[in-house]
C-alpha cells in the first residue's frame, strides 16, 4: 500500500506539472492581435484568418548553430512580408533536436496540430528527408533551406528547396579550382560518416576530372569520421602528395581542426570546402589558420548587387548587426518563395500552391530564382576566401556556365 501511495504522489505531481504548463495561455509569435483559431483551414478555397507557416528547424542538438541562423533569416523575411492574401502570417517554430525521428514528429505536428499551409526548413538534408516523407503524404508544400543533397526533393511532388544542389555545387567548386586557381591535382579529405561531405566530394571528383581532362588528377581520397580531432595521419600523407587543392567539404568543427593542423604541418595547398563552412564559428575557432581558406557558399553580400539583395543585406545588418550568410539567406528566400507562391496561387490549397511554385520566377536575395524539374533552386554559387579573418567574395559561378 505504501509503495503504491508514493506512485500516486508522483502521478499527481506529474498531473500538476502538466496543468501548470498548459495553464499559461499561448500567444501567436507575431505582433498581430489575437485571432480566433481558423476553422476553415480544412476547406481549401476558404482563406483562413491567419495563414500559418511552419518552420521545422534544428534549434537544439548538433545543428543548433545552423538552425539559429536559418531562423534569423526566416524571422527577417516575416518582418519584411508579414501578410499574404491580405491576411497576417503566423510562424510556428518547432524544434527537431537535430534528430531524424524528431524531425518527422515535428513535421507531423505542424500538419495535424497547427494545420500549417506550408513548411520552411530543414537546413539539413537528412532531416529534410525525414520531414518530406511526412509532408508528401499530407500533401503540404515544403521549402527546404540549406539542404543540398539531391535526394531531398527527388521523386517528391510537394518538396522544393531554396538552394542549389550538391551536383552543381561540386561542379562550381571544381570549375573554380581549375579555371580560376589553375589547379591540376587535388586530394579529397572527407568525413565519411555524413551524407553531405560524401555526396559533395563525389560530385567534385567527377567534375574535377572532367575539367582537368586528367583521370589521375584526384591523387587520393582520405577519410575520417565525425568527431575525430587528430588529422595528422591524413595530412602527412597529403603533404607528401603535394596537391594543388585539398577539397574538404566537412562540418566546421572538424574543418577548423584540419586547417589548424595543416598549417602546423606546413601544407601549402589551397583548402576548399562547401557551404557548410559558411558559419562565423569557423574563423573564430581556426583563427589565423583559416587565412587563404576558400569555400563555395549560398550567399555573399558582395556577390549579388541587385536592389533586392542590397535591401536584404541592409535589413539583416540593421536587425542582427552581422552579415547574412548561407543559412540565413536560404531561410529568408525560402519564406519569400513560399509566400510568393501562395500570393500567386491566390489560395491556400496545396495543389494550387504547388502549381504556383512550379511557375516560380521570383527575385530574392540571390537574383531571379526558378526551380528545375526536380524542384531545386537554379542559383549562382559564390566562392568566398578568408582574408585577414574576413570573408571576401572571390568568384561567382553562374548556372549554365
Amino acid at each position, binding site marked *: 500500500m505504501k509503495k503504491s501511495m508514493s506512485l500516486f504522489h508522483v502521478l499527481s505531481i506529474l498531473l500538476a506539472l*502538466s496543468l501548470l504548463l498548459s495553464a499559461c495561455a499561448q500567444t501567436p509569435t507575431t505582433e498581430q492581435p489575437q485571432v480566433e483559431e481558423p476553422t476553415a483551414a480544412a476547406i481549401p478555397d476558404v482563406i483562413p484568418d491567419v495563414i500559418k507557416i511552419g518552420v521545422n528547424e534544428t534549434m537544439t542538438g548538433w545543428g543548433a548553430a545552423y538552425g539559429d541562423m536559418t531562423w534569423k533569416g526566416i524571422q527577417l523575411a516575416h518582418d519584411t512580408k508579414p501578410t499574404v492574401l491580405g491576411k497576417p502570417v503566423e510562424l510556428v517554430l518547432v524544434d527537431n533536436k537535430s534528430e531524424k525521428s524528431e524531425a518527422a514528429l515535428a513535421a507531423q505536428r505542424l500538419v495535424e496540430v497547427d494545420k500549417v499551409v506550408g513548411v520552411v526548413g530543414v537546413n539539413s538534408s537528412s532531416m529534410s528527408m525525414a520531414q518530406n516523407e511526412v509532408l508528401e503524404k499530407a500533401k503540404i508544400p515544403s521549402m527546404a533551406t540549406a539542404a543540398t543533397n539531391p*535526394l531531398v526533393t527527388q*521523386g517528391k511532388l510537394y518538396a522544393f528547396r531554396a538552394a542549389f544542389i550538391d551536383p552543381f555545387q561540386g561542379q562550381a567548386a571544381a570549375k573554380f579550382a581549375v579555371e580560376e586557381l589553375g589547379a591540376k591535382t587535388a586530394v579529397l579529405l572527407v568525413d*565519411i560518416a555524413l551524407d553531405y561531405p560524401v555526396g559533395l566530394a563525389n560530385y567534385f571528383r567527377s567534375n574535377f576530372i572532367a575539367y582537368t581532362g586528367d583521370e589521375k588528377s584526384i591523387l587520393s581520397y582520405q577519410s575520417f569520421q565525425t568527431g575525430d580531432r587528430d588529422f595528422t595521419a591524413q595530412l602527412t600523407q597529403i603533404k607528401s602528395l603535394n596537391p594543388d587543392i585539398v577539397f574538404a567539404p566537412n562540418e566546421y568543427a572538424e574543418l577548423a581542426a584540419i586547417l589548424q593542423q595543416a598549417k602546423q604541418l606546413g601544407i601549402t595547398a589551397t583548402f576548399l570546402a562547401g557551404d557548410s563552412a559558411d558559419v562565423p564559428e569557423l574563423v573564430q575557432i581556426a583563427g589565423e589558420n583559416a587565412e587563404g581558406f576558400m569555400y563555395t557558399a549560398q550567399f555573399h553580400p558582395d556577390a549579388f548587387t541587385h536592389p533586392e539583395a542590397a535591401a536584404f543585406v541592409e535589413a539583416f545588418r540593421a536587425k542582427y548587426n552581422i552579415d547574412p550568410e548561407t543559412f540565413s539567406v536560404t531561410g529568408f528566400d525560402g519564406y519569400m518563395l513560399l509566400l510568393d507562391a501562395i500570393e500567386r496561387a491566390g489560395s491556400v490549397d496545396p495543389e494550387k500552391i504547388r502549381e504556383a511554385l512550379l511557375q516560380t520566377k521570383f527575385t530574392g536575395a540571390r537574383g531571379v530564382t526558378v526551380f528545375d524539374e526536380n524542384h531545386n533552386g537554379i542559383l549562382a554559387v559564390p566562392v568566398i576566401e578568408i582574408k585577414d579573418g574576413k570573408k571576401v567574395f572571390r568568384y561567382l559561378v553562374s548556372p549554365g556556365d
Partner: protein
Amino acid sequence: MFRLPTRSTMLSWGLAAVLLLLAYIGESALDDYVIRILNMWGIYVILVTSFDLVYGITGQFSLAHAGLAAIGAYTVSLLTLPPDAKLMSFLLQAPHPLISNAQWPLLPALLLGGVLAALVGFMIGAPALRLHGDYLLIVTFGFSEIIRLFLINIPSITNGAMGLKGVPYLSGLRWTVAAVILAVFLTNRLITSSYGRALKCVREDEIAAEAVGVNLYRHKTLAFVFSSFFVGIAGGLFAEILGTVDPNTFRPALTYAVITMAILGGLKSLTGGVIAAGIYTVMSELLRTVEAPRMIFSYNFPGLPGLRQLAFAVMLLVLILFAQRGLMGSNEFSWDWLLSRFKRPGTKKEGGEA
C-alpha cells in the same frame, strides 16, 4: 490434458484482443500525429523490454541496442524499397545485384530483420558475454559502433552515409501493437519460465548460479540473442515509420534514450518499461508547449527552443527523488492486483501488459 485457462490468462488475451482492435480502429479514427506518437511509443516499448531482459533480468549491461536496431532497419528498408527507387537513390555506387531487385512483403522482411539482428547479436554475444561488468559494456558499445561504421563503408548495399529514403509505409499501428504484444508476452513468458529463474539467478550471483548447475554462458547468450531479435524487429518498424534511414540515426544516443526509459520505469519491471516509454514519447511532445511563445503574468515570453529538454530533465529528477528504483521498481502489473483495487473505491488504474 486440457486445462481451463486461468482468469488472468483470459483477461490478458482479452486485453491483447482489445488493444489490437483499438489499433485497428485507431488507424482510421486518429490523426497521423497521434498515430506517429503511438507508433514511437510501441517501438520504444519493444526496445526497453529487450533491454530489461538483458540488464534488468540477466544483469548483463549491454550497449549494443542502436547497432542491432540498425540491422533490422536496414534489412527492412532494403527489402521493401521498390527496385526503381533503389536505382534512383544510390548515387555513390550502383546497388549490389543481391539487393537491387529484391522487393519483399513486410512480414518476411521484418522477420528476416529480426533474425539477422539475432544472428549478429549472437556474433557479438558469443565472445563478449564471457566478460563481466564494465568490460562487457565497452565491448558491446564497440560492436554497436562497428555495425554503424560497417553500414557507412558498404555503399553498394547501404548507400553509405547518404542513407535510404522513400521506404514504403506498409506497416501501421496494427503492426506496432502486434509486435509490442508479442515482444512483451514472449519476454514475460521467458522470465516466468525456469529459464527466467535461472537468468535471475545469474544476475544475483554468478558463482552460486554455476554451483546449482546453471550454464552461465548458455543462459546469458540465450537472453542476449532473444532480445536482439526483438531489437531488430523494433528497428525495422522504426524504418517503416520514418520512411528514411541513415547510419547516423543509430548513434549511441538511441541506446541512451532506451536506458533512460528503462531506468525511469524500473529495470526489473516490464510494466515499468511500458509506462516509461509512454511518458518519454508522449511527454516530450506535450512539453513542446513549453517552448512556444506565451504570456506569463502579462509578460510576453518569447519561445525558447531547448526548454523542453530542460523541463524533461527536471521531471526525471523529481521522479527519481520520489521513486529511486524507477516507477515500478521490480513490481509487475497483475490482474489480481487490479481486481483487488476495484474492491476499494477511489483508486486509479494504469494500463499495461500482463
